[in-house]
């Protein structure tokens, strides 16, 4: 509700369409009365049509595929057309609400700002009629019981005028009307009678903190689904809830599986006991989450069949359907699956939330800088130790900087993936796992800080949020980001190509970078040595003649000794030995024009 209060203007108020009198006349002239049962039968016929089309699809006859596709389009046009004859926008019954609420507010001596955002919701005409009375009773009850008197609101640090929001939207197979307010809330026990009258017309009433959701099932039996396999069982997922399908490594955040997409942590739900990498990202009204699946199959248009009483209590399913191959599959309910993550999602935003909840218990923060600019803070609980390390002792393995520290191997991390200097000493923060070290430029202080609500949201995944400490904007570091971060291998494998021939300087790099390496080319040994001091190379490729000085420099210098140097030559190693004498300095020789061999050698030596 806080958000709502800050930006009430973004919510469009309800507009009533005024139809010119001339047009109204024609509308009346052109309409006919139809029995609802007739429309219902037509809808059933369309469902059967879709089922039959699905069976045809399974015959797998190439000649049939185009007409079957056409048949599908016709069926969905028919369904939409028929639905249109039955539905009307919800706004039609709310058009007089501004006035009603105004009157009610006066009656109860309360001040209320009403916002209505229901433009996208359409409902069956009959249901709409039946909804009128219970809906206005419910609103009246909210104004009476939930919204406080202006005086009480002021003494509770609230705005004098309460906010009442009526919002509605269509979900895959239901319409949701959400009524929320910033009052003290309406207890379910006070609205039992109203709850019953909603249930009588087939709607469900869900009570949330300061929000009541009225869920009305849609008379929409045909939907598009994506079929997936989880643990050898096939399921269907409503297509309207699917955001995307992706395949990426699962990370753990607070022991809960997540994936990262565009710097956002998306919590995962699993219906099987093991984790899989195929993930369907599902979006419901208030949650976005991933569902782990073993296999993604087809998109199909299906007819939803209701579940028997024995299965209705399982909230995870919204129905079942018969696919073209005559097998039954269950349709998963994304809204119920989302509830499985609701708590987990809280834990992801956890750290700050925890501090907010325990406001009186101040938390200790370590303040530090990573460069000369802004101040960062890390909760003391996330830190195991502070230390100083010798940067020249940092080694690299599979793209990860590591350091032998006491008796463990410490992963060395930097903010923004900054390059780790090769020499000198640096302050590090060893995180709570005792295995992750964060390089920082200076440690400032440890302070006691009380988190208030004035945190600033940040988009950088390295930080949970920003807050003001001692008058300075400070980023709160997300320790979990570093604890769970995987090394980015391609970035750190930087290869230098040194050749005095301009042709080979252009000939080689495309193949090497195509294999996922970063390439720097130079034409002389002097320039190569200069580069050595500026970058962190995993491997050097040098012309065996003009690069001799370079390989000698590398192998005689402790700092660069470990970098493998590959000689480029048109001769074999033995031939080179006889011609050049002391060539053992090179780690390998490869023919200049043999791309495949070059890539193979690089990958062997870098690994």
């Amino acid at each position, binding site marked *: 509700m806080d958000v709502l209060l800050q930006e009430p203007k973004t919510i469009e108020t309800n507009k009533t369409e005024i139809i010119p009198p001339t047009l109204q006349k024609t509308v009346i002239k052109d309409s006919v009365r139809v029995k609802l049962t007739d429309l219902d039968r037509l809808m059933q016929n369309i469902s059967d049509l879709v*089922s039959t089309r699905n069976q045809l699809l399974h015959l797998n006859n190439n000649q049939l595929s185009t007409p079957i596709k056409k048949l599908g389009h016709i069926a969905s046009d028919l369904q939409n057309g028929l639905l249109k004859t039955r539905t009307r926008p919800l706004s039609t019954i709310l058009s007089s609400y501004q006035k009603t609420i105004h009157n009610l507010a006066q009656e109860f001596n309360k001040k209320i700002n009403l916002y209505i955002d229901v433009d996208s919701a359409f409902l069956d005409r009959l249901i709409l009629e039946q909804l009128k009375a219970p809906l206005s009773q419910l609103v009246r009850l909210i104004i009476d019981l939930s919204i406080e008197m202006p005086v009480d609101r002021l003494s509770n640090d609230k705005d004098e005028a309460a906010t009442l929001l009526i919002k509605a939207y269509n979900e895959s197979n239901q319409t949701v009307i959400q009524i929320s307010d910033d009052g003290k809330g309406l207890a379910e026990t006070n609205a039992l009678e109203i709850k019953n009258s909603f249930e009588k017309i087939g709607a469900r009433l869900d009570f949330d903190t300061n929000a009541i959701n009225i869920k009305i099932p849609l008379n929409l039996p045909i939907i598009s689904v994506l079929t997936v396999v989880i*643990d050898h*069982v*096939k399921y269907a997922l409503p297509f309207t809830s699917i955001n995307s399908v992706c395949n990426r490594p699962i990370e753990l955040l607070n022991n809960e599986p997540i994936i990262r997409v565009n710097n956002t942590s998306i919590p995962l739900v699993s*219906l099987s006991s093991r984790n899989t990498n195929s993930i369907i990202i599902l979006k419901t009204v208030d949650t976005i989450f991933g569902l782990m699946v073993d296999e993604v199959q087809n998109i199909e248009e299906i007819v939803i*069949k209701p*579940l*028997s*009483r*024995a*299965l209705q*209590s*399982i909230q*995870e*399913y919204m129905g*079942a359907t*018969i696919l073209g191959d*005559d*097998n*039954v*599959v*269950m349709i998963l309910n994304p809204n119920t699956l989302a509830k499985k993550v609701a708590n987990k999602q809280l834990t992801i935003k956890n750290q700050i939330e925890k501090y907010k909840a325990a406001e009186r218990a101040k938390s200790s923060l370590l303040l530090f800088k990573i460069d000369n600019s802004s101040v960062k803070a890390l909760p003391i609980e996330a830190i195991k130790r502070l230390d100083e390390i010798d940067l020249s002792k940092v080694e690299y393995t599979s793209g990860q900087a590591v350091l032998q520290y006491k008796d463990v191997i410490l992963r060395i991390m930097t903010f923004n993936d900054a390059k780790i200097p090769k020499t000198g000493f640096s302050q590090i923060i060893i995180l709570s796992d005792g295995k992750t070290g964060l390089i920082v430029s200076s440690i400032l202080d440890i302070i006691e800080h009380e988190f208030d609500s004035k945190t600033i949201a940040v988009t950088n995944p390295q930080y949970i949020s920003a807050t003001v400490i001692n008058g300075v904007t400070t980023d709160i570091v997300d320790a979990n980001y570093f604890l769970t971060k995987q090394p980015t291998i391609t970035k750190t494998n930087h290869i230098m190509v040194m050749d005095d021939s301009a042709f080979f300087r252009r000939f080689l790099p495309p193949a090497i970078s195509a294999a996922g390496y970063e390439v720097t080319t130079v034409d002389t040994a002097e320039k190569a040595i200069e580069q050595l001091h500026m970058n962190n190379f995993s491997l050097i490729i040098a012309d065996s003649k003009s690069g001799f000085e370079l390989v000698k420099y590398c192998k005689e210098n402790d700092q660069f000794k470990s970098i493998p140097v590959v000689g480029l030559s048109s001769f074999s190693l033995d031939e080179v030995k006889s011609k050049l004498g002391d060539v053992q300095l090179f780690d390998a020789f490869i023919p200049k024009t043999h791309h495949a061999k070059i890539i193979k050698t690089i990958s062997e030596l870098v690994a």
Partner: protein
Amino acid sequence: MSHLLFKLGTQYFRFPIGQVKDVLPIPSITKIPLANKEILGVFNLRGEIVTAIDLATILEKETLSPSMIIVTEFANDLYGLIVDKVDCITDSPDESITILHPDELLSKYFKTSAETY
């Protein structure tokens, strides 16, 4: 009145024929994770979805080799009860064979399972 005789484990039972909608060999059943253990899954019977129920579990009996499904209707839904063997339809059954009424069984089942939720 006619009865359908069937075998569950080592014991014979009978259903009033009026409550039997169909008898068929066990088809391919779609498993439903998260459902009660009595519910074996759902299957397609000529375009209708039938919920397959393990009769033995409801009756707390043992099955030997389940092979047939007896379909019955309850509260507008179709249920398939799994049995070992369907014997015959008879007008003069052996009075010593226990009569079961599918609707009673199911309504009792819903009552008890509702309590557990």
